């Protein structure tokens, strides 16, 4: 009974979403206030019914109802309850339902926090989001119904969740990533609404900006968590593979980075207006493309569940409809909103344009590398694969190109600035960082590494510049700190830019100084790596709730001092018979020690992978700074005034905390 109720709730949500797509849009066209007024109510109702469907599916998982096909295929009575919960989105159908749930959640948030906006704008924005919801609800109902039953041949027990996904990382990684992915539908909806209304002014950018920052912040956090999960769960110790699925989430992020910066210019100065709209359309289109790539089964990956060509076709048609429709609208409306605001080459506008161009080009080269094999295959021109060397060769120089500008941008003036002022502001940090990079080369205890020196130079340049700017704003002549001048958006930008520098430094150092060895070890064997001594003390067997494991115990010592006892495991899961590597990691700020077991190779010996990874934590620390930095910008006072203008100022004061 429960699955049927869930199915019905999903159908009701679908019907409500259709009403949301047409009714307020019609009202906006005819200036019919009552038709526009239903938009928030409809949006909240869609959320309610999707939430009911989602919780009923969750109930089926928790109650081990193996008559539901999805539960039977992805859960097991022995699966720990917390993983039964995350198994809801550890499969195609359930993850799609999560997609729709988060989309409708964003819809309700817009309905809730946009009461100060003109009614016609709210109606149009919610209608556009309703249309996206219709598309995905139809996709769920028609091609991937999560409530399909296996009657009468109900299996006694389930197939179990893929062991790779039985991990705390999976509980939060997909929801966070989807928050970002799907959140980009909000700036998209604002852009379409603005195009429809023909009013692309600074107020549009101000409304859209906090939503974009939040979505982009979540996307950053989601990508960071995915990288962390891959690092400890896949057992290779890699943190970024340029896997097409990673690229699928990375492309909207790159485009979103451009959008976040472009919106700043549009809001403050009213320029780049058409361009910003185009970026908003592209960012969401890339989210949809990512969904297509991941969910259609055209890719080989952990994220690709057993594929069905019908599903891929559905998303492809929907993608074509959204991209084609919005670009057509753009072509019809955009020229009429071109701006006539003046700025010079030496200005903050120009520097932000460098950011925009660099990130757009980066998106295009990643897109090219990701789609190239698929296009060649589709036209039967051979089965190619484009590997990490391609992506590194095109992506790394682009980022290196952006970094020098990252320091100048935040402290330069709008409209017109002078090179002399830039030199005056940045002479000290510039000299300091060159000195630092040089000293590191001369006095560092390792051989001079040109890439690390370059990374120190660029990251140091960005950090010192950002900190200098921060200091200039806070410090006053009389020695008192003026903390009130640090607005949430300024703090957020500082954190995000610092985070970027931290990621770059971590990425370069771990790539350059990483030490890794695959070898054969038996009990009593001793190996040296990265200045540490590894001794294999013991080999044994243990039992988990739904698996049996072989484990090995290693003692890691540094100059006779024990650093850690590490016990990597090799697990065999009962239900699927699948084997999983569980790496053991001793993590710290400056380095990780990473041990993974391969397979037994006779005479009580195991294939073992030892790794020493300096500064690998910096990657995720930096990612956290970028994500959180972006999230805190919404507490800025100027975004709150838009709601405060309405009668519900008490709610407005809470800001976007929800």
């Amino acid at each position: 009974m429960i699955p049927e109720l869930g199915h019905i709730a999903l159908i009701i949500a679908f019907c409500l979403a259709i009403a949301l797509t047409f009714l307020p849009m019609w009202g906006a066209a005819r200036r019919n206030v009552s038709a526009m007024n239903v938009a928030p109510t409809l949006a909240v109702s869609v959320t309610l019914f999707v939430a009911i469907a989602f919780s009923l599916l969750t109930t089926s998982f928790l109650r081990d109802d193996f008559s539901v096909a999805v539960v039977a295929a992805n859960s097991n009575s022995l699966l720990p309850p917390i993983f039964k919960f995350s198994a809801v989105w550890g499969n195609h159908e359930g993850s799609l339902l999560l997609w729709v749930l988060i989309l409708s959640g964003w819809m309700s948030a817009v309905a809730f926090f946009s009461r100060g906006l003109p009614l016609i704008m709210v109606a149009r924005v919610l209608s556009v989001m309703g249309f996206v919801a219709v598309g995905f609800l139809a996709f769920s109902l028609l091609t991937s119904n999560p409530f399909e039953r296996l009657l009468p041949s109900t299996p006694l027990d389930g197939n179990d969740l893929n062991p790779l996904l039985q991990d705390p990382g999976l509980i939060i990684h997909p929801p966070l990533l989807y928050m970002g992915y799907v959140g980009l539908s909000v700036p998209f909806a604002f852009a379409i609404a603005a195009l429809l209304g023909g009013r692309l002014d600074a107020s549009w950018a101000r409304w859209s900006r906090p939503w974009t920052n939040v979505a982009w912040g979540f996307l950053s956090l989601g990508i960071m968590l995915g990288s962390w999960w891959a690092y400890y769960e896949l057992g290779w110790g890699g943190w970024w593979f340029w896997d097409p699925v990673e690229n699928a989430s990375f492309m909207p992020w790159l485009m979103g980075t451009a959008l976040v910066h472009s919106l700043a210019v549009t809001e403050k100065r009213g320029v780049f207006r058409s361009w910003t709209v185009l970026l908003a359309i592209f960012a969401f289109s890339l989210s949809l493309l990512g969904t297509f790539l991941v969910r259609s089964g055209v890719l080989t990956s952990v994220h690709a569940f057993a594929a069905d060509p019908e599903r891929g076709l559905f998303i492809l048609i929907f993608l074509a409809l959204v991209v084609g429709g919005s670009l057509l609208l753009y072509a019809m409306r955009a020229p009429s909103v071109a701006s006539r605001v003046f700025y010079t080459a030496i200005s903050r506008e120009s520097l932000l344009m460098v950011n925009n161009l660099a990130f757009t080009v980066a998106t295009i080269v990643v897109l090219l590398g990701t789609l190239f094999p698929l296009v060649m295959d589709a036209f039967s021109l051979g089965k190619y694969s484009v590997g990490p060397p391609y992506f590194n060769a095109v992506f790394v120089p682009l980022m290196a190109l952006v970094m020098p500008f990252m320091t100048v941008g935040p402290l330069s003036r709008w409209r017109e600035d002078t090179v002399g002022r830039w030199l005056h502001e940045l002479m000290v940090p510039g000299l300091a960082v060159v000195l630092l990079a040089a000293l590191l080369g001369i006095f560092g205890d390792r051989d001079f590494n040109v890439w690390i020196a370059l990374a120190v130079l660029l990251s140091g340049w960005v950090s010192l510049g950002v900190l200098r700017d921060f200091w200039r704003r806070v410090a006053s002549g009389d020695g008192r700190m003026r903390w009130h001048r640090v607005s949430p958006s300024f703090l957020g930008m500082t954190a995000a830019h610092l985070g970027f520098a931290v990621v770059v430094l971590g990425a370069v150092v771990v790539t350059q100084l990483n030490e890794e060895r695959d070898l054969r070890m038996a009990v009593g064997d001793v190996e040296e790596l990265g200045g540490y001594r590894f001794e294999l003390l013991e080999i044994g067997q243990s039992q988990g709730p739904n698996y049996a494991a072989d484990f090995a115990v290693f003692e890691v010592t540094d100059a006779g001092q024990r650093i850690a006892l590490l016990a990597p495991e090799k697990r065999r899961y009962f239900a699927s018979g699948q084997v999983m590597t569980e790496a053991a990691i001793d993590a710290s700020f400056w380095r990780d020690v990473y041990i993974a077991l391969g397979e037994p190779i006779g005479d009580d010996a195991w294939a073992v992978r030892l790794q020493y990874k300096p500064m690998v934590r910096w990657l995720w620390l930096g990612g956290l700074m970028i994500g959180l930095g972006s999230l805190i910008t919404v507490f800025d006072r100027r975004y709150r005034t838009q709601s405060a203008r309405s009668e519900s100022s008490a709610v407005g004061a809470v800001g976007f905390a929800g």
Partner: protein
Amino acid sequence: MHPLRKQRLIVVSLVVVLSSAAVGLVAFALRDNINLFYPPADVVAGKAPVDRNIRLGGMVVEGSIERSSTELDTTFWVTDYEASVAVRYSGILPDLFAEGEGVVAEGMLDDNGVLIATQVLAKHDENYMPPEVAAALEGKAALGEAAVLP
């Protein structure tokens, strides 16, 4: 010059410089870094290049995995039920690597027609088959049928 025109000139020249730099980078990077996929039949027929990285995919032949007893070297045969190619790999194999299962190996062919693999990829769960392998095997034999050494 009119300020608005000067502004456009800046935009256009920036776009031109950046995009040509990107095109150059892409062309340079694509030159060496795309790997073509070959089924074993093509490799045996001599259709695969010997001086560059290729990807080979198929099923691991039953009983063909040989491990060195002192090193981490492993040799195995990959088949598409038409022909088989030997693969040598030194290092830790993926968890789901096993006889009779789908595999993709990346590396260079040596003079004896053995693929010296730098990377071995297996599937991610037991129901999932890499699309290239599925396509290579299509119509060759029923999947899962025991393959024999040549």
